[in-house]
């Protein structure tokens, strides 16, 4: 299973619909301070079910919706989609036969969060189950190492390192 694209619209500073193609197994993301690089990791963390505003560097869940800029008004909804190539059938369960899997999350100021798998409405639980056992599930996802995560591990106390181990068990 490979992640082939990340699509964002109205998510944090990505107010314009943006598609990040991932053709190779090693892709670099570069750009000046404050341009929106870390917002891309936040988008991936969010679409796979993150529910804590703090983990998304915000104060409330609505902080993921584009809040406006000097030249643009705030928008009402944020949407992120992950596209996977599942030709190898690695993602088992009900989606094993699908060659392409799409996971979407949308959050609107009026109606809250909705998830979709391959276009069909789903629950957060369904998205999390999809990734169960692939390292993307659960609290302790080592697949998304955010800015500062290495320093937090360096400063962790022995009890906190033990907690990490228990989560990974």
């Amino acid at each position, binding site marked *: 299973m*490979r*992640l082939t694209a990340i699509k964002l619209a109205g998510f*944090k*500073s*990505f107010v*314009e619909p943006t598609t*990040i*193609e*991932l*053709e*190779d*197994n*090693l*892709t*670099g*993301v*570069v*750009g*000046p301070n*404050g*341009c*929106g*690089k*870390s917002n*891309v*990791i936040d988008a*991936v963390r969010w679409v796979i079910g993150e529910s804590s505003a703090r983990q998304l560097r915000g104060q409330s869940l609505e902080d993921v919706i584009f809040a*406006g*800029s*000097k*030249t*643009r008004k705030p928008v009402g909804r944020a949407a992120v989609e992950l596209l996977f190539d599942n030709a190898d059938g*690695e993602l088992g369960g009900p989606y094993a036969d699908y060659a392409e899997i799409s996971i979407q999350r949308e959050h609107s100021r009026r109606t809250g969060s909705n998830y979709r798998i391959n276009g069909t409405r789903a629950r957060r639980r369904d998205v999390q189950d999809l*990734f169960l*056992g*692939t390292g*993307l599930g*659960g609290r*302790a*996802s*080592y*697949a*998304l*190492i955010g*800015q500062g*995560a*290495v*320093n937090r591990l*360096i400063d962790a*106390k*022995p*009890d*906190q*390192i*033990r907690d*990490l*181990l*228990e989560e*990974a*068990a």
Partner: protein
Amino acid sequence: TRTRLKSTFEQVNEHFAAFFSELFGGGQATLERTESDWLAAGMQVIACPPGKPRVALAMLSGGEKTLTALALLFALFELNPAPFCMLDEVDAPLDDTNVERFCALVERMAVRVQFVVITHNKITMERPRRLHGVTMAESGVSRLVSVDLDDALAMTD
């Protein structure tokens, strides 16, 4: 849960030692229990960079701590490997030799795991075949531009 924790501990330690030695070009590292009772013990990192004494993580230099923590994170990743992995400026405190070793490790793992690496480091930027540039030409609005390496080097200027 005692046996489960013990077996996780042993698996992580195996990967941790291997990643540490790959990132440092030698030396050893291990997680140790702070006391013998599994259910009460905390875990601490003991590391021994090549040619140096064995010390607790806090006694290492800034760059050595970063490299050691990366080895542990990769070890935890290996326990539950995901189809992709995103790293956000983890190479910032490293000198050029250690950045090269970090890149070599990522390239080795990229055979079976897909990596997206956010970086300001010119050495790391040279490794991927494909680079995405993010700009905020219009203040507060992020846009994606496709860049090659020369653009990327100019972009951070």
